[in-house]
């Protein structure tokens, strides 16, 4: 047995855009155990429920995370709408779907870039982020914001996209898809990339179920589960398969996310074809009373929103369970027995969003 050393990792680390701290117990170059400590980004966002009314709280919950801010706002709105028992207009559902898929696109491209940066492929990182900027431009054109949109509302959405804009977006996505396909060839075919990702960070199917992995992390271990299948928003009308991989390693996770990028392109195209005319918002009057529970598939996996209201304009409780939080225990598992040099890469393969986790 080699000598054991404890190496602190983070909270400030070149590869991490966000702070997380791990104590790595090393035996020579192998990691024996990883002990995480979190709380560097904790703001206590859920406590603001007593100071903001349920309409204003939307702007707080959107700021759970800057990457999937739209989905956080949408999940909360769906929960409150369920308490009010209102059905939002079909056009609003389709618009929400389009924005959701655009969020997934930009999040996955961002992740691909960060992954490339983690294994030292800087040109690839820059290319991924260049593509991502186009989606942010589209967000800006349609909602007015680049990362925080505040376009949701209890009862629908605040902004509409006309058909010229939607057609323009589809044309843009068509040209983007060809570019992204060229780019992803490098991730899937290049042998230097393969050598860093293949057979690194193995999470078997049984372990993924046992440890409660969600999202692409779970689907890369061969489990066919996607919350979008529940048919919230307009997903019930759209045609898509659940993308899985039986690789169970970092390469599989990369593959699943790349396939999901192309799936998002197809979902946006279908939604633009099928989008009905009509209102985008229904009036909601009074204060909510009751409780609701909503599940939403975010780029990182399944997020759960729980809202409890008491008939006044202040809610009793608004709780978010974010995907990265459940993906932390699989992360600890895949870190055990890995090489020390692979630690930054493995942390990135779960697509960590620390500000979601700690709120």
């Amino acid at each position, binding site marked *: 047995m080699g000598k054991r050393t404890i190496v602190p990792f983070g909270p400030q680390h070149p590869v991490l855009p966000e702070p997380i701290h791990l104590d790595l117990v090393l035996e020579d170059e192998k990691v024996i155990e990883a002990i995480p400590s979190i709380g*560097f980004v904790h*703001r206590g966002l859920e406590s603001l429920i007593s*100071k903001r009314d349920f309409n204003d709280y939307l702007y707080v919950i959107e700021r759970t995370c*800057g990457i999937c801010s739209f989905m956080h706002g949408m999940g909360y709105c769906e929960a409150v709408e369920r308490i009010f028992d209102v059905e939002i207009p079909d056009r609003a559902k389709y618009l929400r779907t389009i924005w959701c898929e655009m969020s997934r696109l930009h999040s996955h491209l961002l992740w691909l870039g960060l992954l490339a940066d983690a294994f030292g492929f800087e040109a690839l990182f820059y290319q991924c982020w260049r593509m991502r900027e186009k989606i942010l431009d589209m967000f800006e054109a349609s909602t007015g914001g680049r990362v*925080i949109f505040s376009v949701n509302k209890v009862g629908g959405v605040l902004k509409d996209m006309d058909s010229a804009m939607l057609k323009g977006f589809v044309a843009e996505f068509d040209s983007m898809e060809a570019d992204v396909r060229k780019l992803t060839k490098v991730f899937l075919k290049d042998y230097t990339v393969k050598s860093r990702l293949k057979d690194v960070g193995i999470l078997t199917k049984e372990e993924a179920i046992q440890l409660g992995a969600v999202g692409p992390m779970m689907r890369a271990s061969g489990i066919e589960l996607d919350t979008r299948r529940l048919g919230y928003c307009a997903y019930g009308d759209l045609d898509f398969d659940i993308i899985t991989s039986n690789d169970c390693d970092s390469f599989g996770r990369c593959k699943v996310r790349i396939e999901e990028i192309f799936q998002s392109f197809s979902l946006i195209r279908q939604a633009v074809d099928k989008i009905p005319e009509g209102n985008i918002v229904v009036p909601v009057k009074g204060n909510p009373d009751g409780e609701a529970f909503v599940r939403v598939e975010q780029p990182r996996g399944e997020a759960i929103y729980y809202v409890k209201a008491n008939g006044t304009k202040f809610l009793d409780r608004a709780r978010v369970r974010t995907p990265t939080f459940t993906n932390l225990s699989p992360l600890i598992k895949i870190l055990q027995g890995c090489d020390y040099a692979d630690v930054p890469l493995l942390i990135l393969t779960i697509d960590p969003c620390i500000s979601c986790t700690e709120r």
Partner: protein
Amino acid sequence: MAKISRSPWILHYDGSSCNGCDIETLACLTPVYDAERFGVINTGDPRHADILLITGGINTQNKPIVEQLYSQMPKPKVVVAIGICACNGGVFKDCYNIIGGVDKVLPVDIYVPGCAARPEAIIDGIVKAVALFQEKHDKYEAEKKEGLQ
């Protein structure tokens, strides 16, 4: 800008932001916005850094980390607070865990407002920081000559 002769290095730390400003700061350093054309470069090591970019407010747990990062940077140093949370706590000001903006623990030189701060605003902040760094550096060198430092 005309007198700038130094190429300061940048250290970015995420205080307790929602990730929005954080990602925008990173986007500034990639080729679309390319803040590196102003002579700066992003580094992960506080001991090499001259300009500290902080996004997000200060909470009880990250306060010692931020102070430590600042103390590890060589003199002279410039601190840029990016986003409204780093300026004064922003939307999370009333949360029990937030102490306030970055200026509660560090001397902040430049404030970049916005939620999330736009890349153009962040680049403006960086350019101002580069100019300020030059000024601080000249002053520091002059003081060193006089034996004050």
